[in-house]
């Protein structure tokens, strides 16, 4: 099907909206009525037709607007995309993976024509038709990682693997949940996760690392993560926190349904074939509370998860101060009925709100 691309903003007037179709395919992250950290990995080999899991790199109605927002962020702060000198080959690996995947998965939108090392890349939505030499940086307008991730939704961390450890050695990070690539670049897996509470003690990172070290070529993996954001703001960076932090205080009982957003990351993991690095795409999906509660099952469940989340996690995810107001709002959509297992909306089988 052809995608209708929205013309919308993720800043200033925040005209971002999800269509009905986008709401129904939203990657709701809670498979039961409570949440605790887990490694929760599974194979990334497609998923139900139309879902965000179906393609290797999901392209949706927000594509063009997200790419415009990325360009604005990079113009203001070029340090959001960096690659340590030894990661150039991994950048080419990333370019190859995304170009091959998108041209195979969305042949009506993207084309890749390869004649030896001479490649022609056509990105119809963005109006790009460019011929370059694979593995020759001088034939691209910028580095290979930056070139392709200016055309692909989500953040990208590129992890070097050395001696049973992963290192955050390159990335494109403009839609992050409050971490700084410029600060964290070069860190090992435990170091860049150091500020996360509880999970170290639970052994989560040790197990996750062991899993990720063994992600093999041809067998990608995925998991979900989530947090909360006031306003549909993609760039919740520490760099700009002194500018956007104040927005957290603008919530009122009247505007919370439209302003408060659940922010879900679809994280995928690919072994890159030429460099043996690990590509870690972090795709951000935003949804307003008022859109979540339009799905009765999700409304019931989100209330229970937010209510029962340990304080440390609510603090780390940055919504401890707003939690009471969130609960006042969400409780209207929880009638106490049981919910069906799994993440799907189950609109046909779950009862409407009983009040």
């Amino acid at each position, binding site marked *: 099907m052809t995608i209708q691309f929205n013309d919308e903003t993720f800043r200033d007037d925040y005209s971002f909206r999800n269509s009905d179709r986008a709401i129904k395919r939203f990657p709701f992250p809670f498979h039961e009525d409570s949440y605790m950290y887990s490694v929760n990995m*599974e194979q990334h080999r497609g998923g139900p037709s139309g879902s965000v899991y179906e393609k290797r790199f999901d392209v949706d109605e927000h594509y063009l607007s997200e790419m415009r927002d990325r360009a604005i962020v990079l113009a203001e702060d070029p340090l959001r995309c960096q690659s340590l000198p030894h990661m150039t080959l991994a950048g080419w690996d990333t370019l190859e993976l995304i170009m091959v995947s998108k041209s195979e998965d969305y042949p009506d939108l993207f084309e890749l024509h390869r004649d030896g090392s001479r490649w022609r890349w056509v990105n119809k939505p963005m109006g790009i038709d460019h011929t370059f030499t694979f593995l020759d940086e001088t034939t691209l307008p910028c580095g290979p990682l930056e070139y392709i991730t200016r055309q692909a939704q989500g953040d990208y961390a590129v992890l070097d693997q050395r001696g049973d450890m992963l290192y955050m050695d390159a990335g494109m990070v403009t839609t992050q949940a409050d971490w700084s690539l410029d600060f964290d670049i070069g860190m090992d897996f435990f170091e860049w996760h150091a500020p996360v509470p509880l999970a170290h003690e639970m052994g989560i990172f040790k197990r996750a690392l062991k899993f990720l070290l*063994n992600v093999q*070529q041809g067998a990608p993996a995925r998991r979900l993560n989530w947090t909360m954001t006031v306003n549909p703001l993609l760039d919740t960076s520490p760099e700009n926190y002194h500018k956007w932090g104040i927005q957290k205080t603008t919530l009122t009982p009247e505007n919370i349904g439209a302003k408060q957003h659940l922010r879900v990351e679809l994280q995928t993991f690919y072994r890159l*074939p030429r*460099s043996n690095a690990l590509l870690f795409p972090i795709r951000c999906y935003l949804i307003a509370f008022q859109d979540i509660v339009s799905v009765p099952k999700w409304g019931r469940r989100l209330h229970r998860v937010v209510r029962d989340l340990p304080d440390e996690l609510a603090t780390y995810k940055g919504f401890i101060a707003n939690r009471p107001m969130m609960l006042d709002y969400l409780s209207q959509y929880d009638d106490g009925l049981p919910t069906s297992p799994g993440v799907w909306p189950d609109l046909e089988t779950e009862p409407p709100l009983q009040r």
Partner: protein
Amino acid sequence: MSAAPQKARAGAERIDVTVSAVVPVNDLVTRFEFTRADGRPFPPFSPGAHTVVEMQDGGRTRLNPYSLMSDPSDPTTYAISVRRDDAGRGGSLFMHRNVKPGDAMTLSYPVNLFPLDRRARKHVFIAGGIGITPFLAMIAHLEHLGGAWELHYASRNRALGSYVEDLTAKYPHKVHAIFDEDGEAIALEDLLDGQPLGTHVYVCGPAGMIKWVHDTATAHGWPAENVHSEEFLAPQPGKPFEVRLCKSDIVIQVGENESLLEAMERCGVDAPFLCRGGACGQCETEVVEADGTFDHRDHWLEEDDHASGKKIMPCVSRFIGETLVLDR
């Protein structure tokens, strides 16, 4: 999350191939070249990677890992070199005696447990015998990228030095061939001395050589992170033993000439694996109950894991005793 849970099959993804060439290299070593059965290009691979070759030997499936030695930038061909081991368990003999051009075989996707450290200012390779194979791919790769390298290659004599003529002819200033029968030896202390900061050393060869390089480098003040090695352990034969697999709820017999992992596979248990050589950690298995002695032969588990008797790597390790119950 479980959006669309799919069970992973044990081991890496597989590729169906056709044997395109069988080339004797010398009295002991033969090169096997493969093309893809479906005619598509092979996936690119990183130098140092190995593939697990599936051999259908009568009723028995043999799975042996071999380093990919072909040029990683050539997507038409994968190549391995196999040294015939007359005293081994039969995998290399099967390759030498039975595999002919045109045969259909199955390879795993490449898995790399011996990658280049791409930060290195310079790469120094030390090879013993058939340990030359991963370095052939690394050298081809670095030549494309313009990376600095040198090779010190010890073999028994010139006739048994696989690819030594090609290498010395092509790279006369970078390749240093050493022949044991001429009374030569790698001048390790000299070559470690005077390397620029940021040099990395890679060694592939017999266990004794690997230990010698690690020990000497440490004594010369080299950081452990700058010294890399790969040694595939072939599962060694041992006395037969019996194992109960509690999740599968069966009792299996491990024969003298098969590994515990192979015995599980023979009995239809889908056990995880990647390297089948005690190095990758993928097949690590919990011990539920044991009355006897473990014969740990892997490089993966820590010493205290070995001592605890709570874990075993079924690809290479064995057991001697009355009862062994595994969580598999």
